[in-house]
């Protein structure tokens, strides 16, 4: 059986493999690594853990708890709608509950669940020992947890958001949503999104630079391709939401009228920015699930995936096309038919790459011999559900039909088909597939299969009839329908089966619980899989591999590979230097480049996210002065974070295999940190582009009242602007230097620009509350100011490294990150200046 899964890859020159390391005894090797990689003991150990296994599982477990909470909220909704005059909830509470149901499922279940899966699985599958930035993983988790807790607490106290999960303005503006309900959403979700950006950055870097030596980009497991697509989309897709949330929070807190039509703002700007995030979001959720399917289906069918290249191309197509669909959520806002047609065509076209994948999966099943294990049940559930959801999705992409179906129960049905079909069923397949690796135990038979059937019947019973409910005219988000007896039986059916589905999910939870408590020991590599995630003992140890897999370990039965790796055959065996280490490889061919030393257990991520949490809470309580002061500890902790990267002790090149010696990452030309900063700057650029889009949209499309005449003192603005531009050009040049004096001058240049901004421009800006134009100018000045401040900090950090003697001929310290940041800051500053000049000329 294994011969089909283990056939060598297509004929081609195998890259030179690393030599074998001498065999060692497995147990001592294991113990040595465990000593270095283990979490601290007890509860404190949970707080200080930076392990991808611990945190990935915790992400997923927390997400499942939120899934249960969101599910309970859904049951409250269904209880209310079971009868036309439901008096179960009052309208205010009902609005909070459906808003929280959507927000929890999207932001606190689906996204963290896929992040958790990626964080937990990718290092195992790629053959490395941890994610690129372990402390960032932990920071992301705590931000997620604290943001989620803020939202839940608000629900308990009856002040949860109540404007629908997409928070349309002006309903969510302070005039129509007084109180902190909307602020809870804006601040809570943005807080949680820190974890999304963090995860996206490190997933990108991990996939591109930590693959096992010889695992070429063009040959890596499909799951990695899917996650690479997902993380790229998150880097570009989340910033518009963050930008929109910040702008709306500024409007609510300080009355800056970005979305107020009476003062030059536009409610549609919110919709554009929200859906610019919101539609890619759907594919961000679907892609990891599809990646799990592409991994599991061939294993369940004892074959290899059919059409590897076509699937990667489909992922590529989805990643891009999904950014050209967002307006299909806005077909009824009065956009001209030609523009609707572009987005309708793109929405239709995006079904093609999806179809390519679906048919490739079915073809894989034809090619192989499907075996009906439990994951396969859920995969069949996926096919049935997702195909229907995809087809209704195509229907909704057709403009005239959308005009009827938009905002009705039909859309509710469609999105549940897509999200439960395209995410929850594959996730259940993934959970049942990888559970032995988590627990080391085999499943207790029976409950899982029963749970599947109950969920499947409950799901389709709930949502199939809901299509008709919508076509019969029932809009979303209503709590009573006394005048429409024709909807009663439909809603009652949905409610009844909704409870059936809930029972099914409870049974699924019970199945997992039974596996953890009563399961017998699982045998190694229980599915006879060809991927590296199974080439380790069960349950997975904290360090994954005793020695790191290389080219000769790829694409072979995992059980064989495991024995070799456990005896130190692979690269970088054990932890002889008492450090957490893994290999960093080149992007394309995965040639070994250097060895990364990782930070160990630390409470710093917990402290930093707590201090961000304090800031968020102070803003929520409208104590803006204190909130500003709360940023000081945040900045200090970020500095400490950077200090933690300093090398500990003298740096010796490391022999990873006989005769192969690599430098440590401090001496590397292109470290993981630099790659991570580039990824972060991509996200930052997307944020900046979102604001520029807002500027263009409000200047060109919005037909609001003209802005009051600018009161700006032009000559003063001119010299301040010139000074900033000059200082930034100088800063770019200085950050290319390499001596303390350059760093000192760079600090001065950035400080001069900052002072010119604060003293020359900020005092003469027009009142930002007067008109959206002035508000946007103020917001852009704040963006530039923040970046200049960080650039000052980074130049100062380099100076500090010189003072401590940490920068030498070979170790370049923070020069490279500063240069990257300086270039970004200088360019965005200059672009801002040009954009504002252009807007002034156009107005």
């Amino acid at each position: 059986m294994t011969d089909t899964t283990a056939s060598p890859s297509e004929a081609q020159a195998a890259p030179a493999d690393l030599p074998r390391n001498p065999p060692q005894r497995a147990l001592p090797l294991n113990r040595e690594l465990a000593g270095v990689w283990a979490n601290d003991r007890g509860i404190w150990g949970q707080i200080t853990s930076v392990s991808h296994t611990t945190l990935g599982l915790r992400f997923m477990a927390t997400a499942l708890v939120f899934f249960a909470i969101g599910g309970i909220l859904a049951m409250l909704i269904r209880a209310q709608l079971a009868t036309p005059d439901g008096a179960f909830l009052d309208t205010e509470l009902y609005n909070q509950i459906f808003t929280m149901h959507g927000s929890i499922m999207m932001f606190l279940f689906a996204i963290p669940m896929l992040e958790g899966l990626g964080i937990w699985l990718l290092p195992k599958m790629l053959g490395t020992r941890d994610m690129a930035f372990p402390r960032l993983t932990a920071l992301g988790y705590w931000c997620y947890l604290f943001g989620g807790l803020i939202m839940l607490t608000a629900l308990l106290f009856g002040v949860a958001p109540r404007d629908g999960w997409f928070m349309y303005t002006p309903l969510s503006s302070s005039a129509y949503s007084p109180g902190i309900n909307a602020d809870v959403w804006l601040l809570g979700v943005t807080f949680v999104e820190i974890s999304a950006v963090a995860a996206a950055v490190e997933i990108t870097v991990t996939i591109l630079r930590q693959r096992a030596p010889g695992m070429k980009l063009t040959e890596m497991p499909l799951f990695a391709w899917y996650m690479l697509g997902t993380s790229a989309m998150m880097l570009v897709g989340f910033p518009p939401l963050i930008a929109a949330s910040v702008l709306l929070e500024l409007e609510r807190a300080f009355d800056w009228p970005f979305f107020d039509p009476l003062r030059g703002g536009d409610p549609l700007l919110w919709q554009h920015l929200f859906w610019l995030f919101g539609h890619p979001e759907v594919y961000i959720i679907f892609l990891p699930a599809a990646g799990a399917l592409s991994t599991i289906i061939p294993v369940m069918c004892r074959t290899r995936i059919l059409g590897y290249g076509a699937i990667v191309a489909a992922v590529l197509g989805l990643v891009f096309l999904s950014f050209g669909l967002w307006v299909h959520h806005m077909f009824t806002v009065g956009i001209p038919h030609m523009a609707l047609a572009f987005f309708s065509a793109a929405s239709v076209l995006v079904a093609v790459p999806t179809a390519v994948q679906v048919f490739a999966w079915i073809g894989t099943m034809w090619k192989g011999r499907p075996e009906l294990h439990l994951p396969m049940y859920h995969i069949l559930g996926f096919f049935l559900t997702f195909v229907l959801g995809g087809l209704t999705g195509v229907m909704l992409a057709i403009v005239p039909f959308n005009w009827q179906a938009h905002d009705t129960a039909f859309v509710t049905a469609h999105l549940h088909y897509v999200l439960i079909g395209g995410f929850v069923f594959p996730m259940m397949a993934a959970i049942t597939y990888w559970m032995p690796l988590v627990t080391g135990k085999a499943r207790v038979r029976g409950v899982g299969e029963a749970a599947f059937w109950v969920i499947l019947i409950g799901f389709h019973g709930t949502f199939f009839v809901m299509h008709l409910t919508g076509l019969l005219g029932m809009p979303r988000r209503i709590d009573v329908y006394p005048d429409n007896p024709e909807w009663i039986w439909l809603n009652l059916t949905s409610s009844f089966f909704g409870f059936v589905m809930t029972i099914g999910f409870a049974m699924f939870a019970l199945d997992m619980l039974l596996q953890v408590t009563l399961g017998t020991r699982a045998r190694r590599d229980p599915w006879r899989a060809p991927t590296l995630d199974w080439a380790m003992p069960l349950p997975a140890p904290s360090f994954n591999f005793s020695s790191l897999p290389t080219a000769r370990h790829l694409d072979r039965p995992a059980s064989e590979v495991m024995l070799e790796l456990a005896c130190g055959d692979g690269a970088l065996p054990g932890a002889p230097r008492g450090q957490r280490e893994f290999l960093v490889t080149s992007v394309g061919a995965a040639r070994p480049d250097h060895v990364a030393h990782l930070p160990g257990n630390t409470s710093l991520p917990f402290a930093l996210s707590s201090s961000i949490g304090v800031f968020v809470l102070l803003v929520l309580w409208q104590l803006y002065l204190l909130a500003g002061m709360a940023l000081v500890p945040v900045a200090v902790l970020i500095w400490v974070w950077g200090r933690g990267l300093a090398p500990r002790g003298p740096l010796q090149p490391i022999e990873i295999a006989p005769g192969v010696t690599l430098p440590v990452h401090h001496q590397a030309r292109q470290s993981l940190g630099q790659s991570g900063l580039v990824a972060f700057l991509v996200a930052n650029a997307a944020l900046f582009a979102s604001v520029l889009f807002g500027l263009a949209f409000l200047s060109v499309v919005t037909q609001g009242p003209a802005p009051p005449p600018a009161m700006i003192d032009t000559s003063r603005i001119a010299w301040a602007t010139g000074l900033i531009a000059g200082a930034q050009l100088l800063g770019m040049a200085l950050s290319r230097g390499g001596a303390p004096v350059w760093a000192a001058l760079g600090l001065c240049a950035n400080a001069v620009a900052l002072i010119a901004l604060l003293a020359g421009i900020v005092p003469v800006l027009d009142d930002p509350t007067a008109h959206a134009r002035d508000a946007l100018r103020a917001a852009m000045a704040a963006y530039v100011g923040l970046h200049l401040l960080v650039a000052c900090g980074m130049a100062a950090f380099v100076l500090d490294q010189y003072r401590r003697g940490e920068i030498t001929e070979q170790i370049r310290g923070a020069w490279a990150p500063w240069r990257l940041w300086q270039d970004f800051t200088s360019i965005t500053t200059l672009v801002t200046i040009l954009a504002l000049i252009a807007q002034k000329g156009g107005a």
Partner: protein
Amino acid sequence: MRCRILSATLLLAGCGGPLSTLAPSGPVAAEIAWLWWAMLAGAGVITLFVLGLLALAFGRPRETSTRRWTHGLGLWFSLGVLTLLLGAGLVVGERILPRDDGAVTVRAHAFQWGWSFTHEGADGAPVESAGLMHIPAGQPVDILITSEDVIHSFWVPRLAGKMDAIPGRTNRLRLIADSPGVYAGLCAEFCGRGHAGMRFDVQAHADWPPENWPPEPERGRQ
């Protein structure tokens, strides 16, 4: 008729109802309903096809051409179906758009939580009404939709699709009622506490403009 047969076979209670998009009462809504039945039929066939392929997978392993799956079915089959569908959708969309053809216009103004309508009276003076809109039957009517406060959405399912009422903008929606009568409408975009109750009616009149404002509610009812 088609609707009756289908619903009977599906053992559904029916496609009727005052807010049913499947019981159109004018050409705009009828074209969209037609589109729906066509898409439903196509979707049904495709679903059966895909599930059939899936069922056939449970057998002996067999040699199968990769390109047939990824290119034949995945790319060309889906692209063909989708091109056809997109074309149909765009043509229908073009046919039901408002045009500059001197159609009767009525203003619909949404607020939390209700509707006020402004018609052009017989003498050209504006005539207002709340909760009940008057239109001529048998000819195109353009509704100019505005909002007082938050975003609402104007929807009379049996006559046309919906169009949002957005503060700061005026949106235009064309609807046509085949015959005189009263048609139910509602706010489709969530707009706060009173959203569920934000209903209105549209009365289509045989003779237009009506001689007396406000027209008698019973007039023209079938």
